[in-house]
């Protein structure tokens, strides 16, 4: 049915005013000189104009507006998202975790045995049981990392509880 998708597409762009100046001139020329383009253009233009003038909107019931107003009377406008989402805090968290990831990555690289020859099989020697976890968790940096996370968690909990308390005061 649709044997000229490219022609149709280009003519629709022309009708919608989406063609570039060069393309517009080219399509205009084709419409003026070629019967196939001219008939297709008139066909699509008719459809376009018909849609522009004919599409009807349905109306809801007469009470619709009243129903909405009665419903919103029970609601309050919520505070704008930006007022309770502090971007600085989000960026702070992001910076903290990125720093931690990069730090651990660099630390990992620095601990790698770069001098080992290529034919040695490091992975075969690797065993979870052999890892001395105490060595890692006694590390000062790890303790600092855990402490910082605990403090951040407590701060988050504190701000959440404060907000809840304020909301309860407002309702009360």
């Amino acid at each position, binding site marked *: *049915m*649709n044997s000229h998708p490219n022609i*149709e*597409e280009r003519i*629709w*762009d022309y009708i919608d005013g*989406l063609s570039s100046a060069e393309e517009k001139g080219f399509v205009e020329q084709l419409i003026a000189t070629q019967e196939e383009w001219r008939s297709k253009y*008139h*066909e*699509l233009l*008719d*459809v*376009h104009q*018909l*849609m*522009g*003038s*004919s*599409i*009807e*909107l*349905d*109306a*809801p*019931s007469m009470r*619709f*507006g009243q*129903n*909405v*107003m009665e*419903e*919103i*009377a029970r*609601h*309050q*406008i*919520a*505070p*704008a*998202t930006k*007022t309770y989402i502090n971007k600085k805090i989000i960026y702070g968290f992001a910076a903290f975790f990125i720093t931690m990831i990069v730090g651990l990555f660099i630390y990992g690289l620095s601990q790698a045995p770069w001098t080992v020859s290529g034919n040695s099989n490091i992975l075969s020697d690797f065993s979870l049981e052999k890892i001395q976890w105490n060595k890692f968790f006694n590390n000062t940096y790890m303790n600092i990392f855990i402490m910082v996370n605990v403090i951040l968690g407590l701060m988050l909990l504190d701000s959440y509880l404060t907000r809840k308390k304020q909301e309860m005061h407002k309702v009360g």
Partner: protein
Amino acid sequence: MQNGLNDNEIIAEILRGNQQAYAELVKRYQNFVFTICLRYTPIREDAEEISQDIFVKAYRNLADFRGESKFSTWLYTIVNTSCISFLRKKRLDTHSLDDERVFAVADNIDGGMRANQVEQKSRHAMVNEAIKLLGPDDAKVITLFYKAEQSLEEIGRIMGMEPNTVKVKLHRARTRLKEKMEKHFTQEVRDLV
């Protein structure tokens, strides 16, 4: 009272505490919202319920409207998400643009029409009947473009798509609409061309 004000001025008024000013926005957009909802569900009661929810949702989140787009575009974004959620909840069969079953469903709907009724239809009624035979995506794109005066960029924002994708969807929707009209309203199309 708010008749002379534009949408953004009315919104500022509402945010200052004049809740009644919202009635003007509801009046301006209720038919658009309701019509788009009807593109998703043929049941008027359901469409009205969704429309009401949309206006309540828009009111509650009005402080989030930053005026970077038209209010209508922002509102239609809520319409789009609400209608999709409604369809998911109801587990209705949603038809994508590329789903050929759309035509089979549409053909079945149209099968009930009597020939003499079709002949009597005006050109306007023909277009509106043909739109009802389209899938929700096609009907929505056409309604937003032709009736709600949304640009391709704005429709893209509403539907969460690139403007170029919207352009392709609009082309396809119009082609399908034309095919529907040719198939089901042959006589009217002959008169038209």
